């Protein structure tokens, strides 16, 4: 049965929402894996160990519904550990073939941790896989089904040869440990991950429908805006190679497709930030493109769009999504969790009131705010009697 564009976008949106649940401060990363998969590009995640990078990729791979390969590379990792062992039967016949079953060449989503520690042999083979989606080793030549490869590292490589390899990862995200105020959420979210619930799963077919829509989308209307953004970046000294500038159009088209739009517009320019290769460059790019990115919105990739743009529409989408989730998680009457739930609801309306002047509160949030206000005010916690009489 063929899947419509709208159904594909909706199914991926639902699957991503489930994949990001419980992952504190990693929602944007989950979304960027999906964005890169739809764009047919690769993602590099830079951040310290123990920051749930692999968990985020694993959950996204599950949400996308493809086969998944994950490996932690080291200096002594053999190519066979990544690509598969040499087929001994074929070797007796004089040909060097690789037995790729269950290995990277057969994966649709791949995660390579400490990717820059790979040997020259591994990285050279990887180049072909990443660039041309072709696996070449010995006599083996095969097209690989890889939709996205996520590489992770503690930092960007300084050696020129590795920098060239790193450049194959068009999108980059820099992750930090979860900040202090969100530690409670981290602990609760981490614990919830152990209890594996029913997560919605899209399908590779949905991914492919969106990828095709992205490839066929008309970028002409958005191109002048992208050119303006690139000129602004150049004027600010932010280096973006011509190749990256051209390829970022794929991310923009994919962002539009994931948002359910066939024609990318100004609202879809935000992936440009993730194509800026350094952390400092991304921070500066956010500043200088702030006005241009104010129109950013993407219901499927709300966290990534918000992190890139800091725009009000993207912010409203993220708050609305979080608010609806909290509202839906109401514990039963008299449950011990009720006070904690109320505090979460207060957190949602606090974010609305701190984030938007009343007259600038987007329509989507106005109704949600009213709903939460009613809940909070109908069963407000009582002031302890002893204190009230003080």
């Amino acid at each position, binding site marked *: 049965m063929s899947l419509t564009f709208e159904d594909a976008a909706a199914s991926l949106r639902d699957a991503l929402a489930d994949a990001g649940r419980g992952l504190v401060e990693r929602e944007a990363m989950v979304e960027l894996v999906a964005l890169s998969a739809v764009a047919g590009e690769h993602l590099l995640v830079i951040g310290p160990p123990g920051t749930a990078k692999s968990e985020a990729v694993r959950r996204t791979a599950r949400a996308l519904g493809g086969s998944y390969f994950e490996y932690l590379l080291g200096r002594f990792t053999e190519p066979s550990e990544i690509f598969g062992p040499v087929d001994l039967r074929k070797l007796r016949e004089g040909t060097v073939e690789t037995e790729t079953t269950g290995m990277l060449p057969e994966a649709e989503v791949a995660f390579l941790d400490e990717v820059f520690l790979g040997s020259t042999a591994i990285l050279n083979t990887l180049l072909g896989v990443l660039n041309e989606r072709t696996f070449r080793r010995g006599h083996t030549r095969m097209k690989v089904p890889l939709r996205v490869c996520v590489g992770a590292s503690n930092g960007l490589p300084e050696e020129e040869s590795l920098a060239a390899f790193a450049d194959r990862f068009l999108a980059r995200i820099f992750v930090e440990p979860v900040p202090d105020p969100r530690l409670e959420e981290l602990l609760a979210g981490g614990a919830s991950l152990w209890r594996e619930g029913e997560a919605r799963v899209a399908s590779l077919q949905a991914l492919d429908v969106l990828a095709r829509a992205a490839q066929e989308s008309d970028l002409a209307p958005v191109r002048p805006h992208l050119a303006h953004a690139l000129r602004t970046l150049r004027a600010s000294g932010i280096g973006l190679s011509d190749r990256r500038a051209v390829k970022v159009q794929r991310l923009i088209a994919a962002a539009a497709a994931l948002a359910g739009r066939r024609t990318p517009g100004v609202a879809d320019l935000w992936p440009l930030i993730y194509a800026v290769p350094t952390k400092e460059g991304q921070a500066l790019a956010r500043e200088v493109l702030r006005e241009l990115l104010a129109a950013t919105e993407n219901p499927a990739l709300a966290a990534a769009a918000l992190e890139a743009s*800091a*725009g*009000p529409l993207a912010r409203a989408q993220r708050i609305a999504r979080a608010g609806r989730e909290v509202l839906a998680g109401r514990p039963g009457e008299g449950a011990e969790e009720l006070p904690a739930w109320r505090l979460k609801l207060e957190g949602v309306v606090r974010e609305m009131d701190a984030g*938007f*002047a009343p007259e600038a509160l987007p329509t989507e949030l106005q109704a949600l705010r009213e709903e939460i206000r009613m809940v909070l005010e109908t069963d407000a916690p009582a*002031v302890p009697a002893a204190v*009230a009489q*003080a």
Partner: protein
Amino acid sequence: MRLPRFNQGRVPLSARASSQAPARLPVTWSPRMEPLPALAVAGVGAVALALARRALAADDARLGAWSGVAGSDLLVLLGEAHSLPWVDGAVYLGRDGAAPSLLLPCALAPEVAPALLERALVAHASDGAPLAVLPRSGFLVPVGAARPVARETLAAWLKAAEGSP
């Protein structure tokens, strides 16, 4: 803007009173593209009372994490963004790097250079900085002398405020 006259006898949480004459500034405000991180919450009139009731309903750990300033018609609580209480109508305040002596509404930006606004307001405030600025209600509140919130003192302030006409 006018400075609230704090009733010192009933305001054990508060900063010192100020009775300076109103200073008028033709400042307009517009929604901020990116809000300031919240550092304080303020309520005026009925919202101040609701804020005090909400604060008193908090547990000791949360209450102890706030410091506050109270006036005859307003309450300002300072604390970490994620811990600040919410009541309908409360205004959240944060610090703009360009005017570090002011606490400005998180969601509003002045249409004058923040540094100029800061200089003008600080010059008018005899109680010194930092100052919480509440443009919609017209209050300018010195918060430098904020004290940790004690349940009994806040309850006493609420009782007195509820009793006042």
